[in-house]
Every structure is written in structure tokens, then in C-alpha cells.
């Protein structure tokens, strides 16, 4: 019974996918949307059921489906484990997933390929669930690749635009680099322990006698995988480009769920990373630097979705910072609150874009507050949450990260705090440019402006409420439910920070930092009424940052150009030389043949003469020599 229910959690979205693939087009848009949404909602309902059960008993549910791989002493089962961590991920993947499916029904209703969109979305949810619930790393890898594929399909969903296709390819290729690292990490672990099962790995590693050098290499490779999927430096450039996809996709895949897969992986394998402090340091530094760099790029972006994309990269950086400092539960906490408020922000921006006739440039917006009150209010709540203003959810999770950083390493704390101030600034810049002052778009757009239908505003409202109250799962005043809930997963107890004077001062500093960011944005964009300059008017540092520090151009010059150059060298020089060699062998044989053909002139007399001479020579050779 339980096994069947677990299978339904996994397979419901897959059935939705098949249904939409085979019948979606004929059955119409209403059917496609409803099927997709219901499939994910079923998963969500069952996830809630299992969550309540595990929360009460504290015992993970493990189901072994079949023996998967058995080679000499290497054995792997295909199993599903619903423990505290996977259930948490299941809850928000399917929960936010259902809301976004609901939203998409309205958002995509004009698209002729709606059934395709929903089948891709369902497939994505299926793979995401696979990634989360598998009982070993290889199943996680299946899901990992699957979500990458769906990400590719959905970024390039409007495939008639070549730029979007390029963005999709970029995302796929960048992820491939990380995936290679992940795969190598899996191989190293497999060769070390002859198993990839989480429980067995954990037992083997905690038993001791582990080659730490090898383990460090493995952990580093795994982190490279996480870097690709979770868009960390230096593999982050695909995520902002991935905004080419429809906005619900950005909300679901590139903000709330898929990009947190790297964090899930590291949290899942925390027992490995605990033994490799070197890799932990690298993770912390990469995370902090990513947070700062991405936030600074976000300051100057004018595309509403690009701002949110860089904000996502930056927030993911903060989560990695927490992971690197060994505070896995804090990272998970931020993943959850971030999923709420970032999904809300993306869906809100989608609502704005919908109203603006697919205009995404904030320089053409403004004054939307009165026309779209619900979108405005929900986005405002999410913005306050991401800026770390109490009592919104983001405040608690971000504050815990800063607190952890402060206790571990002051420079990292400073970097993270700077990133937070910038976050507050660019988020309010976004809000002021979009919703305040006067409308700056065309007359035609102005007539078209409207509040989105209730199918779109309902998910917004739910997510806004969650962003508002999401913090309660881990309040800092002792007795954090989340820390208690996740405790069985981690070795040793990560002591909760005792709230002393220092902690209160730090909280005050964090809030003050957020307020400073907001204040600066207020002074410049609301009071000052500044509008960012057009692209060609930018100069100096602003231009550099607007162009993302020319990182893409740098990659172009450092990697793509040399490879292209090499390819061109092979094509223009090496290949002609090689084929010349082969061709000359051919023409040599041809020439010899022509020479020989001259003897074959058809004169029978000559043939006979040659025959006699040849025979005589043979004769002389055999008898006289």
C-alpha cells in the first residue's frame, strides 16, 4: 500500500506528461492545463501525507523497487527514500509546482503549444522528484540530467527565436561541464566504497579508514557539479540567459527548484563534505564571491527578469556560503524561504510582462501600482522578504546565514552583508522603476494595461503569504522546528546560536543594511525619479557592470575563440593536408595503372610476344639458374 502511494508521488507527473504528449493537442488547452496541474497536485497531496507521517514518527520511509546494478562486488538497488530532507524538497517542489502550473494555465493560454508546455513542465517535476527521492547518487544523477534536459526544452520553448535557442544551448552546455564533474565524483565514490547508496556510503565513511585525499577530490568534483546546476562562479552565466524561457519556467526551474539541486546534493552528502574541510572552504568562498558579484551585476540590469536572475544567483551564493560553513540546516532554510519569495517575484514579474505585451525593459514601465494592485502588493511582500526586513521570512533565513558567517569568518560576513545591502537596493530599484512614478511605455501598451486574471493572482497571493510567514519554521528564539526536524540527517549537532547581545547587534546591523539599501534606492529612483540610461549612453563602471563585467565576452575570447580557431586550423590546414596525402596515394595508383594500361593495347601479336618472352625467361630461370 505504502509502496504504491510512493510510486504515485513519483509517477503522477509522468502520467501527466504522457497524457499531454499523446492527447494534449486533441483534447484542447483546458484539458492540457488541468491535467498538468492535477498531476502535480496529486503528488503534492501525497507528499503532505508522507510528510505528516514522517514528521510524527521520525522514521524515514524506504522502498526498494528492484535490483538495479550488480557487477562483481558492486551492487545497487533502485529504491526510494522519503526521509526528512527529501520530503522537505518534495513539499516545495510539488507545492510551488502546483501553484506555478495553475498560474501557467492563464499565462500560456494564448500559446498554440500549450500542451507541449505542460508536458515539459510535468516531465520536469517528475525528474525533480526522481532527483530528490532516489536512494542513491546514481538515481539522483538521472533526475539531475532529466531536469537539465527539461530546462533546455523550456528555455528554448519559443523555438522560433534563435536567441532563445542559443540561450537554451548555453544552459545545456554549461551544465554539461558541471555534470562531468558530478559524474567523475560519483565514479570516485563508487570505486572507493563499491556502493553509491546514501545509507551505505554514510556507514562506510563514518566507520573511518577513509582515504581523505581521494575523498577530497571526489567532494571537489561533486561541488563542480553543484556549481553548474546551481549557477555559481564561474559557471553561472547560463542562468541569466535562461530567462529567455516563459516566466513560469523561470519561476519554477530557474528560481525555486532546479537551481537548488546543487544545495540538495551537498546537504544529502553532508557526511562527505564534513570530512573535507578544504572543499568546504572552497564552497564558502565561491558562494560568498558569487553572492557579491551577482548582486553587483544586478544593480545595473534593466530587464526585470535579468534583475531577478542575478538576484537568484546571488541568493544561491549565500546558500553555498552556509553550506561551506557546515550550516546545512541554515542553507535548507534559505532554500525554502527563497523558493517562496523568488517564485512570487518571478510570477509577479510575469504578471507585469503579461500586462505589458511582453515588454521586459523596466525603463519602459512605471506607475503600474494603481493598475495592478494585487501584483504590486504581493511583489512588495516578496521584495521586503528578500531584502531581509523583519518579520518577513527572508529576514530569518538570511540573518542566520550572516550570523553563521560572522562566527566563522569576518571577511565572509562582510562580503555577504555587502551582497545583502545590494540586494535590498536593486530589488527596490526594480519596484520603484516598475510600479511608481509615471508610465513610460507607449500609448498602445498603456491601453492594454490590466490586472492579471485570478488564476494568476491566486498563486501570487499564496506565495506572498508564504513569503510573509515562511520564517516561522525556524525562528531564532530557540526551539527551531526546522533544525529539530533535520537533526537526524547531520553528524553531531550544529549548535544553535545562543542569542546574546552580539547576535542582536548583528541582526540590527543586517536590518540597518537592508534599510540603507532601500533608502538609497528610494532617494535615487522614487525621490530623484532617475531612470536608467539607454544602453548606448552608459559609460565607465556602470557600463562594465551592465555588461556583466564582460564575463561572457571573456569566455568568448578565452575559450570559444581559441576552440573555434583550433577548429578552423583543423578545417583549413590539417584536413586539406591529410586529404592531400590520401588523394596523392590514390593518384599514384591511378598513374601507375595508366602506365600499365598502355601495354594493354589490344595487339594480340604483342600479347603473344610477351607471353613467349615471359615463358622463356621463366624457363631459363628455372632450368639454368
Amino acid at each position: 500500500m505504502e509502496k504504491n502511494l510512493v510510486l504515485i508521488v513519483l509517477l503522477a507527473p509522468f502520467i501527466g506528461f504522457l497524457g499531454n504528449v499523446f492527447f494534449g493537442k486533441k483534447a484542447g488547452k483546458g484539458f492540457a492545463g488541468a491535467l498538468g496541474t492535477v498531476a502535480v497536485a496529486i503528488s503534492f497531496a501525497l507528499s503532505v501525507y508522507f510528510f505528516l507521517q514522517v514528521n510524527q514518527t521520525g522514521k524515514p520511509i524506504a522502498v526498494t523497487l528492484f535490483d538495479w546494478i550488480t557487477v562483481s562486488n558492486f551492487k545497487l538497488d533502485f529504491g526510494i527514500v522519503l526521509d526528512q530532507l527529501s520530503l522537505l524538497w518534495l513539499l516545495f517542489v510539488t507545492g510551488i509546482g502546483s501553484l506555478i502550473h495553475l498560474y501557467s494555465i492563464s499565462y500560456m493560454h494564448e500559446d498554440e503549444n500549450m500542451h507541449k508546455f505542460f508536458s515539459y513542465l510535468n516531465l520536469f517535476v517528475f525528474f525533480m522528484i526522481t532527483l530528490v527521492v532516489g536512494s542513491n547518487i546514481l538515481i539522483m544523477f538521472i533526475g539531475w540530467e532529466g531536469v537539465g534536459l527539461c530546462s533546455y526544452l523550456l528555455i528554448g520553448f519559443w523555438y522560433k527565436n534563435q536567441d532563445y535557442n542559443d540561450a537554451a544551448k548555453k544552459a545545456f552546455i554549461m551544465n554539461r561541464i558541471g555534470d562531468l564533474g558530478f559524474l567523475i565524483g560519483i565514479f570516485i565514490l563508487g570505486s572507493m566504497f563499491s556502493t553509491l547508496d546514501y545509507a551505505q556510503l554514510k556507514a562506510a565513511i563514518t566507520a573511518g579508514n577513509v582515504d581523505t585525499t581521494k575523498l577530497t577530490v571526489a567532494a571537489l568534483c561533486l561541488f563542480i557539479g553543484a556549481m553548474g546546476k546551481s549557477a555559481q562562479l564561474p559557471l553561472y552565466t547560463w542562468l541569466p540567459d535562461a530567462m529567455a524561457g516563459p516566466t513560469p519556467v523561470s519561476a519554477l526551474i530557474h528560481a525555486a527548484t532546479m537551481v537548488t539541486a546543487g544545495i540538495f546534493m551537498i546537504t544529502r552528502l553532508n557526511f562527505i563534505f564534513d570530512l573535507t574541510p578544504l572543499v568546504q572552504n572552497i564552497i564558502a568562498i565561491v558562494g560568498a564571491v558569487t553572492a557579491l558579484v551577482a548582486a553587483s551585476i544586478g544593480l545595473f540590469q534593466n530587464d526585470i527578469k535579468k534583475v531577478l536572475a542575478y538576484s537568484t544567483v546571488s541568493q544561491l551564493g549565500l546558500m553555498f556560503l552556509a553550506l561551506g560553513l557546515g550550516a546545512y540546516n541554515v542553507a535548507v532554510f534559505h532554500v525554502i524561504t527563497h523558493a517562496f519569495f523568488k517564485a512570487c517575484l518571478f510570477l509577479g514579474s510575469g504578471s507585469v510582462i503579461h500586462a505589458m505585451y511582453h515588454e521586459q525593459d523596466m525603463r519602459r514601465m512605471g506607475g503600474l501600482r494603481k493598475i495592478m494592485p494585487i501584483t504590486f502588493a504581493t511583489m512588495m511582500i516578496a521584495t521586503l522578504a528578500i531584502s531581509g526586513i523583519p518579520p518577513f521570512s527572508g529576514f530569518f533565513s538570511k540573518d542566520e546565514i550572516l550570523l553563521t558567517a560572522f562566527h566563522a569568518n569576518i571577511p565572509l560576513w562582510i562580503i555577504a552583508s555587502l551582497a545583502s545591502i545590494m540586494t535590498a537596493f536593486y530589488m527596490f530599484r526594480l519596484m520603484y522603476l516598475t510600479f511608481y512614478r509615471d508610465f513610460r511605455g507607449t500609448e498602445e501598451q498603456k491601453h492594454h494595461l490590466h490586472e492579471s486574471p485570478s488564476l494568476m493572482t491566486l498563486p501570487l497571493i499564496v506565495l506572498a503569504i508564504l513569503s510573509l510567514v515562511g520564517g516561522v519554521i525556524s525562528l531564532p528564539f530557540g526551539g527551531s522546528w526546522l533544525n529539530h526536524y533535520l537533526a537526524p540527517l547531520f553528524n553531531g549537532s550544529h549548535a544553535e546560536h545562543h542569542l546574546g547581545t552580539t547576535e542582536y547587534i548583528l541582526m540590527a546591523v543586517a536590518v540597518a543594511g537592508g534599510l540603507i539599501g532601500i533608502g538609497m534606492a528610494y532617494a535615487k529612483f522614487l525621490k530623484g525619479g532617475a531612470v536608467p540610461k539607454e544602453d548606448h549612453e552608459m559609460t565607465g563602471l556602470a557600463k562594465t557592470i551592465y555588461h556583466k563585467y564582460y564575463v561572457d565576452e571573456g569566455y568568448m575570447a578565452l575559450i570559444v575563440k581559441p576552440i573555434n580557431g583550433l577548429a578552423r586550423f583543423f578545417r583549413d590546414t590539417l584536413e586539406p593536408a591529410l586529404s592531400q596525402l590520401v588523394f596523392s596515394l590514390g593518384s599514384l595508383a591511378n598513374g601507375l595503372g595508366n602506365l600499365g594500361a598502355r601495354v594493354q593495347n589490344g595487339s594480340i601479336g604483342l600479347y603473344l610476344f610477351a607471353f613467349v618472352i615471359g615463358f622463356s625467361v621463366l624457363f631459363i630461370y628455372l632450368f639454368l639458374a
Partner: protein
Amino acid sequence: MENILNHIGIENYLFLSVILFCIGVFGVLYRRNAIIVFMSIEIMLNAVNLLFVAFSTYHQDAEGQVFVFFSMAVAAAEVAVGLAILVAIFRNIGSIDIANLKNLKG
């Protein structure tokens, strides 16, 4: 039985055979008429047959003579086929001068 070789000597048979063979060879090489060429080939063949028989007698072994029967039977068949081909060629190109038979040119 008195052996005829005692009177004539094996060497003379050899000389005759070689002379016949060389006549055949030169006939093949110098004549242009296909029928003459054909006849020359037959002379060579018979030179060899003669040698066979001579040695067969010399060694007191009948195998060589049996072999010659086979050889002559095959030669008869060959002549039949060869002449048929020549007739066919003559019908087609109106000549049996081998200088004109250039269709084998590669």
C-alpha cells in the same frame, strides 16, 4: 621386342621436337593470319606430344602415352572451339588478321 629407339636414338627425337616447337613459336609470333597462328599452336602442341611419347618409350612406361591421348582429345576440342570463334570473328569484322583484333585494348 626391339626398341626403335636403338636405331634412331633419343637425341634425334629431342631435336625434332625442339625444331617443331620453335617453328610453332615463330609461326605464332610472325604470322598475322589467325588460322596460321592456330596451326602453329597445334604444331607446338604436337611437338610436346612427340616428346611425351618418345620419353615414354625410352623409360618403358606407358603413362606418357596415355597422357598424350588425353592431350590430343583436349586439343581436338580446343580446335573445334577455336575455329568456331574464328568463324564468329570473321562474320563480325570480315577479317581474321590479328592486327585488326584490337577490341581487347585496355
